[in-house]
Structures are given as C-alpha cells and as structure tokens.
C-alpha cells in the first residue's frame, strides 16, 4: 500500500498539484512571517501577538466583505471590494500595531530582549480575549456569518479549474498572486526606496543610524505598523479560505508556523523568510497529501513542520540565511 501510494505520489499531476498547493501555503506563511521578520530585524522584538493581529485582520476583513459585498454577485465587483478591504484592513491593523509600539514596546528597548517576548505574549492574551468578548457579545460566532464571509469570494473562485490533466483551485492561485505581490512590494520597499534604506541601516546598527540624525524611534513605529498591516491582510486572505476561515484559534494556528518560518529562515533575514516559507509550505502540502492518501496519523503535517524547525536548529542554529548572532539576540 505504501509503495502504491509512493507510485501515485510520483505521478507528474500529483506532484504538480502538491506543488501548487505548497506554493499557496507558502504565500500565506510568507505574508504572515514577513511582518514578524521585519519587526525582529529592526526592533529585535519577537512578536508573540503577531498571530492575534492576523486573527483580527481575518475578522475585520470578513466583516467588511459581508457588509459591502452584500447582494452584489458579479465576480469583478467582489474583487474590487476585496482590494478596497485590503486597503482598509491594512490601515486599521497597521494603526493598531503603531499604537502598540508607541504605547507598550517602546518602554522596553533598554531591557533584556526576553521582556519583549513576555510583553507581547501578554498582549496576545489581551487581544485574543478582547476579540472573544466582542465576538460573543454580538453573537458572531459560530453563527453562519463567517460562512457568509467564505461565500463572499467571487463565484469563479469557488469551483476547481481544470488545466489539462490537473485540477487547480483558483483560490490557491489568487493566494499565490497576492503573496507574490506582497513579497515583491516589501522587497522593493526595502531595496529601492529611501525609507527602506533607513530601515536596513537601522537593522544593522540603530545607534549609528540615530547618530546620523534619523529619528529611529519613528522608523520603529512605522515598521511595526507595516508588519502588523501585512499580517492583517494575510488574515483577510485567510477569511476566504475554507481551510482556515475567521476564527479565534486562528491566532495560534498562524503564529506557530510563522515562528517556524522566521526561525528556519534565520531571524530577521528577508531572503531566508521567503525561502523558508516556500520550504515549510512544500513540507506542509506534501505531508497533507500523504496524510490524505497513505498515512493515517492525524498530526502528520503539523508535526513535520515543527520537526523542520528542530532539525534546522540542530544542524544550523542560526537558520538557513541567518548570521551567527543577529543583533545580540
């Protein structure tokens, strides 16, 4: 049976399907992890509340989509609403992130880095519980409203698209597209804009950057806001995905794989994060296939993702693209 499954796995159409599935997962992981890695590179803060920001983005996005898509059925109109929602969610979650940085994290820069983990961990508890209160108060969950959020995607994304011998989910392709755009946009921001240059300088040596007359604290706030905003947009994308959807556990379900991605890639490295996202996405997709077809162990994909983390840290403690000691953390 195992050999049969292996033969089936090696068929080109299976491989291609798994590959596309893996890319779409990679796109999601990359989007969530990018914010995490940007914040770590510059501020040295490993943000435990990042998953909560994604979850908030998913709820906000789902809410916007349900309210504004309403009766419109046209695929194009829904796409337009989606992109408007992207902007709104980005703005809202980014301003939340900015507030958090100014109000809380700024207090801790002169303390050992462990305190930032503690603070963001507590913050995650508070945010999760606040969302829970709001959600239960308005009776939003588990009411069908969030099923409606799944239903607000354009009709052409609902059915599988057959390309020759393989069937592809258009939603996966859309996720890959959005993920690629996000990665490209962050890359352009970091390497082609003046502000990105300041960010890179700040992550190399923030004291020297400050000595050059740049207001590093404002840069910190902006980068934290951008990172949070990207996490929010990733959440919005997840609200459309039947595998994830807007839910309270989303905060942990996205935080842990995102941690794996940033650590495997090397904390605070852009290239490493993207490569690791693809790696983790592929492992996830492959193991999901094996679980569905040959191995009955339910936790297989999740377990393999964490094994990737453990093995990477054993073999290469600084991660794939990390330098030995990133900013003394």
């Amino acid at each position, binding site marked *: 049976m195992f050999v049969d499954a292996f033969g089936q796995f090696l068929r080109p159409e299976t491989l291609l399907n798994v590959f596309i599935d893996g890319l779409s997962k990679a796109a999601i992981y990359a989007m969530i992890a990018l914010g995490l890695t940007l914040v770590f590179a510059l501020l040295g803060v*490993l943000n435990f509340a990042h998953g909560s920001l994604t979850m908030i983005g998913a709820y906000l996005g789902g809410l916007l989509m349900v309210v504004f898509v309403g009766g419109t059925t046209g695929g194009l109109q829904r796409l337009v609403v989606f992109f408007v929602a992207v902007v709104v969610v980005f703005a809202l979650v980014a301003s939340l992130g900015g507030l958090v940085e100014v109000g*809380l994290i700024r*207090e*801790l820069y002169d*303390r050992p*880095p*462990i*305190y930032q*983990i*503690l*603070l963001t*961990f*507590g*913050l*995650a*508890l*508070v945010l*999760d*519980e*606040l969302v*829970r*209160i709001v959600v*239960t*108060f308005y009776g939003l969950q588990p009411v069908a409203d969030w099923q409606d959020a799944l239903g607000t995607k354009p009709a052409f994304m609902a059915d599988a698209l057959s390309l020759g011998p393989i069937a592809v989910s258009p939603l996966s392709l859309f996720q890959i597209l959005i993920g690629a755009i996000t990665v490209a946009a962050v890359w352009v921001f970091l390497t082609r804009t003046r502000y990105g240059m300041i960010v890179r300088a700040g992550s190399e040596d923030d004291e020297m950057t400050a000595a050059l007359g740049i207001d590093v604290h404002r840069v910190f706030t902006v980068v934290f806001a951008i990172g949070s905003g990207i996490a929010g947009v990733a959440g919005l994308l997840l609200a459309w995905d039947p595998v994830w959807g807007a839910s309270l556990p989303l905060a*942990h379900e996205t935080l*842990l794989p995102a*941690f*794996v991605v940033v*650590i495997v890639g090397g*904390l605070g490295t852009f290239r490493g994060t993207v490569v690791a996202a693809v790696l983790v996405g592929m492992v996830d997709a492959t193991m999901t296939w094996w679980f569905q077809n040959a191995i009955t*162990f*339910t*936790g*297989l994909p*999740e*377990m393999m993702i*964490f*094994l990737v*983390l*453990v093995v990477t*840290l*054993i073999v290469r*403690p*600084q991660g794939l693209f990390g330098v030995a000691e990133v900013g003394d*953390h």
Partner: protein
Amino acid sequence: MYAALASSPIGAEARTLLPKVETMVAVFYFGLFAMSFDFIFGYTGYLSFGHAIFYGTGAYFVVLVANGKLPLLPAGTPFVVSILLAGVLAAVIAVLVGSVSFRLSGVYFAMITLGFSQVAYVFIRGWGYVSENPRDGAAVSTATHPSGFDIGIPGVDALNLAIGQLTGDSVAVGMVALNGTEVSYYMVGLVVLVCYFAMQRLIHSPFGKVMLAIRENEERTEAVGYEPFRFKLAAFAISGFFAAIAGGLFAGFRRSVAPENSMYFLVTGDALLSSIIGGFGTLAGPLYGRLFDETVREFLSKSGAGGGLLPYLRDHLPASVMESVVYNGLTVGEAINTFLNGHASLYIGLVFVLFVLYVPAGLLGTLRARFDGPLAKRVPDYLDRLRP
C-alpha cells in the same frame, strides 16, 4: 479558616474573594510546575517555552500506568512510584532535549524548546494508543482505580491517603474531620512542600550559585572553570523532574488528561504568567503568582458555587441598577454578564502586561527588594521594630 470566614458576618464577601479548597489544590500542583519552570528560567535565565513537555509527560505517564498501558507497570503500581518514575522519565527527556537545545540561547532556545514541545503535543494528540480518542485525551476509569491515588509510603497502608477530585479518602481524627477534597489539599500540598524544599536546597547549594552565575554572565562562569553546558543540562533535568511530578499530581487529582491542558504551549504560558506575577528568580513566587491567577479566575467565573464577583453582584445589586441603561440599550446587567463572565484571561493578561512594564521583579521580588532580603528572615525584624 475558610469555613470560619465563610460563616462570619462578612461571609458573602469572603466567599466572593477567597479561593475554594478545590482551587487551592490546583494552585498547589500548578504552582509546583510554575516553580520548576522558574527553577530554569529564573535561575539560569533560559526561557524554556516548551516546559509543558515535562508536565505533560508526568500527567500522561501516571494515567497510562493507572490504565495498565505501560509494560512492566501493572495498573496497581503505587502512585508514588509512578510519579517518581514519571519524574525520572521526564529528566531523561530533559537531558535529550537539553543536550540539543543548550547549544542555543535567548530567543533561539525558547523557540527550539517550543518546537520540541509542539512535536510532542501533536504526537500525543494523534497517538491512538493513549485512548480511543487521543484528541480528547485519556481518563482513568473507576473500574481500574475505584478509590483515587494514594500518596504515602508504598507498602505501609497506614501512611497512605488517597487524593482525587471526586474520590479519595476522608479522615476523622478526634475533633478534626476532613472531607475528600481537604485530604487532597493536604496531601498534594505535602508533596509540593517536599519538592519546594528540595529545589530550595539545590538553589542554596554551590550548584545553585553556579546557576546564578550562568544567568549573570555565562562567559565569565566558564572562565572561572565551570562548564556551563553541564550545569545547565543538570538544572534542566532537575527542573523536568519536578515538572513531571507536578503533572503527575495534576493527573492524579483530576483522573484525566487532555493534550490541551498538559502539552500545549499555552500551558507553559500559564507557568510564565505565574512566574512573572509572582516574581521570577524567587522560587516561592510562582506559587503566589498562581494563587493570584486562580483567584482572579475564580473571582470572575460564572458558576455560583465557589463564589465570585458575578453571583455576588447579581445577588446584591438592586434590580433598578441592574436594569438601568448604560449605553445604547445595554443594561448594567448585560454589561456585567459580558465583561465579567469568565473573561479572566483578559484581566490576567492586562495585569501581566502591567507587571512586565512596571513591576518586573514580581510580587515577591518587589517585596524582597523592599525588605532587603528574603521575607522569612527580614519580616520578624521589621515587626520587632514596630513593638513599643
């Protein structure tokens, strides 16, 4: 004490504020886990975000032994033996995990231990051998263990007393009559006390001084001639041992275990909350932190039996206040229901954030700084000074 206060004129207020005996048992075993977490985090400075792996090992080991699922250990194995073996097993796991993890430090150490514990968590959640439905965890059936688990000296029946949430012994000696839960309270408390003194002894030994030296400056410790790696590993193993005992007590009292309340990373998070609120780097602090945590949770719980804010307000606020409108059709009663009904995590999270920001030494640590030394030594002097 509790009974005396509860039947006094301020009984309603006392029931609202004070923790129940059941809660205190939970404070004890989880406090022990938080102490073992603090043993490694507070004294060597390594944040082990996967400490739940040891707690879970202890809990699952005890339940598996009680169900007769482990080779060589029949269902009738004395509880004390099984928690000690669980501790040894956890120490072995700690050596294995630690020998890999201690090559890293800081954030990386936290992450690799988190990785290990999540692997264990996912594994135990999918391992069909544990129970029919591993996702919901395993329970000890009353068929294999009718009366609870004995704490005491194996073989000497007179010294054994059984613990358990719904089962267990009750004792009546002369004037004193204790029900099952109160017996559990004293017996679990006894084990925790013994473990506390053992850890306390270790911390005040030369070994403990090396741990502190590692926390303060690892390179210098090495330069003085100690090999930090070995000391860290040993401390980790000891910490794992006591964490597993805490897990064993938890499973023994509850008679069941689930992946979510033993192996999940938020269990470690709860220990972290207790350590920070109680004061990390003070061994007893986490116990007080946990007491605080559980008290707030109980205070805000919706069930009336243990007292708490919600039933108190419902009983004592006049109906006119309950029905007055605060904002946009929201009555006071509804607002109380919404914001106080079991949302303890919110308030504990807020308290935690405030502690991290403004009281980084925690309750006990701050008091120690104020009194300039351990409380037990200093407080009597201060009290003497107040005497006329």
